[in-house]
């Protein structure tokens, strides 16, 4: 193997050197020619090179795109994912058509009109009609694609349908955490100044809405129901990216963001579809955030609605699991009240 590499490297350099030498020599012989160092056979070779390149490009493009389709197109697991995917493939069809046609035409022209001493180029500086055509047609096609895109975008970023499952998702270096509103369906308020090693989300436990909030180790969401992520960050910008859900939204310190989606496949179902029994949906961080950016992820479990409800019921509020924290707060509050009374 190494020997083959070595030999081909040497051969390669020999070829380069020969070409180098021959063009040095040619340069001397064709002094009288019109264009300095012009060589007809090399010129033709370059034109043919263009054609070979063109064919390989098209064959390679189709071959890889078809053969590897299942690898690079991830299964879709959200409702809007189907919509954007359709837009994606229509855009692909349009652009691939333009791409292929223009490349064919260009390399074909380059080949067909390669230099020929007996011919003269045609003086053809403009053609208003032609130019209007290729101004207006792209404009129309783009208008269609934009129009469609805007409708889809409006739906995805518009208000979520009635009572979505609200889940708070918080990014910090280098992990994600989540908080559910609990029985009252209301997330308690928070303040970044309350963050410490225990209360990593800075939840304000003087707000009674916080009492039943729970913070699981993994995010669970129900299939078929709208899920609304309320997203924030503790330190730098992160991004909640779920490629299977075709969903993404940045997590920005000081500016809460949100994103809603409707999961369409449970974790069980997607495991079957991908043939990978260990598969899990994940939130990937997709905004550069420091050393461990590449490994900042969080499991998302999609369940049937009844399973989800059961799971939710089994979760204990955070404050119940951290009684010491509660007493600490109460002490502090009492102290404050006392000192206020004084």
């Amino acid at each position, binding site marked *: 193997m190494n020997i083959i590499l070595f030999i081909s490297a040497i051969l390669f350099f020999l070829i*380069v050197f020969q*070409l180098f*030498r*021959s063009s040095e020599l040619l*340069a*001397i012989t064709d002094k009288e020619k*019109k264009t*300095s*160092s012009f060589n007809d056979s*090399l010129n033709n070779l*370059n034109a043919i090179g263009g054609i070979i390149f063109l064919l390989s490009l098209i064959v390679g*493009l189709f071959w890889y795109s078809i053969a*590897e389709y299942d*690898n*690079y*197109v991830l299964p879709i697991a959200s409702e809007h994912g189907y919509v954007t995917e359709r*837009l994606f493939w229509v*855009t692909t069809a*349009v*652009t*691939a058509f*333009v791409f292929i046609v223009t*490349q064919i035409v*260009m390399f074909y*022209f380059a080949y067909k*009109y390669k230099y020929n001493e007996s*011919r*003269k*180029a*045609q*003086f*053809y*500086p*403009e*053609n208003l009609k032609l*130019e209007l055509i290729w101004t207006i047609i*792209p404009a129309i096609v*783009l208008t269609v694609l934009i129009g469609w*895109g805007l409708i889809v975008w409006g739906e*995805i970023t518009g208000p979520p349908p009635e009572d979505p499952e609200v889940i708070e998702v918080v990014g*910090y270096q280098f992990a994600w955490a989540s908080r559910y509103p609990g029985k009252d369906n209301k997330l308690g308020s928070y303040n970044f100044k309350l*963050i410490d090693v225990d209360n990593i989300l800075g939840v304000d436990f003087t707000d009674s809405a916080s009492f039943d909030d729970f913070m699981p180790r993994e995010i669970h969401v129900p299939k078929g129901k709208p899920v609304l992520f309320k997203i924030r960050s503790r330190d*730098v*910008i992160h991004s909640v*990216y779920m*490629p299977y859900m*075709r*969903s*993404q939204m940045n997590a*920005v*310190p*000081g*500016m809460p963001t949100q994103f809603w989606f409707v999961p369409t496949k449970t974790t069980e179902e997607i495991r079957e579809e991908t043939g*990978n029994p260990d598969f899990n949906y994940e939130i*990937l*961080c997709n905004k*550069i955030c420091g*050393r461990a*950016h*590449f490994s900042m992820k969080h499991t998302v479990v999609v369940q049937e609605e009844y399973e989800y409800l059961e799971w939710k019921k089994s979760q204990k509020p955070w404050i119940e699991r951290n009684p010491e924290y509660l007493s600490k707060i109460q002490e502090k509050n009492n102290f404050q009240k006392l000192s206020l009374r004084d």
Partner: protein
Amino acid sequence: METKLKTIKKVKVDHDEHHDEHHDLGFIRKYIFSEDHKIIAKQFLITGIFWAVVGGLFSSLFRVQLGFPDLDLSFLSPIIGNWLTPQGKIDAEVYLALITMHGTIMVFFVLTAGLSGTFSNFLIPLQVGARDMASGFLNMLSYWFFFLSSIVMFISIFVEGGPASGGWTIYPPLSALPQAVSGSGLGMTFWLISMALFIVSALLGALNYITTVINLRTEGMTFFRMPLTIWAFFVTAILGVLSFPVLLSAALLLIMDRSFGTSFYLSDIYIGGEALANEGGSAILFQHLFWFLGHPEVYIVILPALGIASEVIATCSRKPIFGYKFMVYSILAIGGLSFVVWAHHMFISGMNPFLGSVFTVLTLIIAVPSAIKAFNYIATLWRGNIIFTPAMLFSIGLVSTFISGGVTGIFLGNSALDINLHDTYFVVAHFHIVMGVSAFFGLFAGVYHWFPKMFGRMMNNGLGYIHFWITFIGSYLVFFPLHYIGMAGFPRRYYSFSTFQAGNIESFVDLNVFVSYAALITFGAQFILLFNFFYSMFRGKKATKNPWRSNTLEWTTPINPGHGNWVGAIPKVERWAYDYSKTGSKEDFIPQNIPYSRTPESNLPDDDQH
């Protein structure tokens, strides 16, 4: 006003002719602190080449990390020892520093300073018919500010904590807080200082280019007789003047946040075990400011390349560029629109989705003039008589990659599709092809085409061909596969995908290895160019006066033009730059300084309009 300008010009001419008589500028004033635009252009070019090698080396390093994550790099430790972990791997933070420096170097130092700095400087006076730039002194300053900026950026690679590592977009809070990543310490300070110097350099250069184009065109060189290169450089300079100051203010506010405790971009942050005092800042304010420069910047990078391609394609097809006026209007439209599309980089930043809709519309409008340009290049080839010089090959390559990279912009500009593609390798593929590769091809084309004018010698064609084919095929092999990796949801700026599970990860391991091999080979092939460049500079065949049989004014100067460019009077311009293969004419080109009165056989009824 008119007469006043003329007198100024006249005085300048006299002054320069005076100069020609006794060449007694010392070595230092002639080659180092030179005010001659041709020397300054070469200074930009050489510095740009240096940076391109550094930027390329960095990309080779992290391509090794991506393709061969298990490789033991200890053998490199004499050179990059403190970048490696004890296991001989590139450190995760160093990886981020490398991509940050790579991006910064390539975008600003190579493709802005190296490309515009070289060719705007070299070609504007020569092609509009001026003895030099409007202000030789400011032009000299422009280079030396760039030089200083380069020094500072280079030093930053070695400072404590390493160079900046928040990505070339340096979004705060990451770039504002040394606690967040070590590159945001001293390295980031150096980055900001360097960029501030860079902006000064870019402004001095651009103001000069604009003034020269407006004021110093030779007699008869109306705006609509200017070659497209000049139009491209002119609009590029305007974009720079309008957008770089915004980056400066963004950087200043960042400096304040970093060093003086202000809260322009910072708010509600808990990091390193403590809550910071900053409140009320907006992290995405920085993104708006950055991309207000950042988007025009990508056109600052690509327009000069397109300008060069226009010139080369027309010359080597022996045909007028097709649709000259449409090309000019397209450049103007792209220039104008480039200021109102910036937020397409921010669809999922959390900004109001309605803004997203507006920017989707504006972004896709800018695709139209870009498409026109591509079509016009192709139409120029039609019924031409094409000579494939290396410059011509790279120009055709540029059109090819400009189209391949351009069409993926239609995905990314559509906010609904960007949700899933943003910040993935799809984006890496897109901008490398449309901006990185295309602009580099423009740079190569420019070097091959104007080398004879720069150094009075020819480059070796054979090596040029080899260089082109390896680079062209290689670039496609490096960057095209990244589209698939991106569609499969691979985020960019990831040090490793070892913990990753998307689709069939195995097949992407192979693809990543393949891409890395292609990248290393492609990078290696650039040394063919380097050899050719330096070898030909001294040993190349002597150039003739007009080796490409071209129409533009620079080829009417002596083979080695001295200070002042033309011996004697500056030629008068009589026609546009594209009278190639004109019907009736015996020669297949009529230079711009040949009056119609000397070409009665080929004149057209509406010729005075050109």
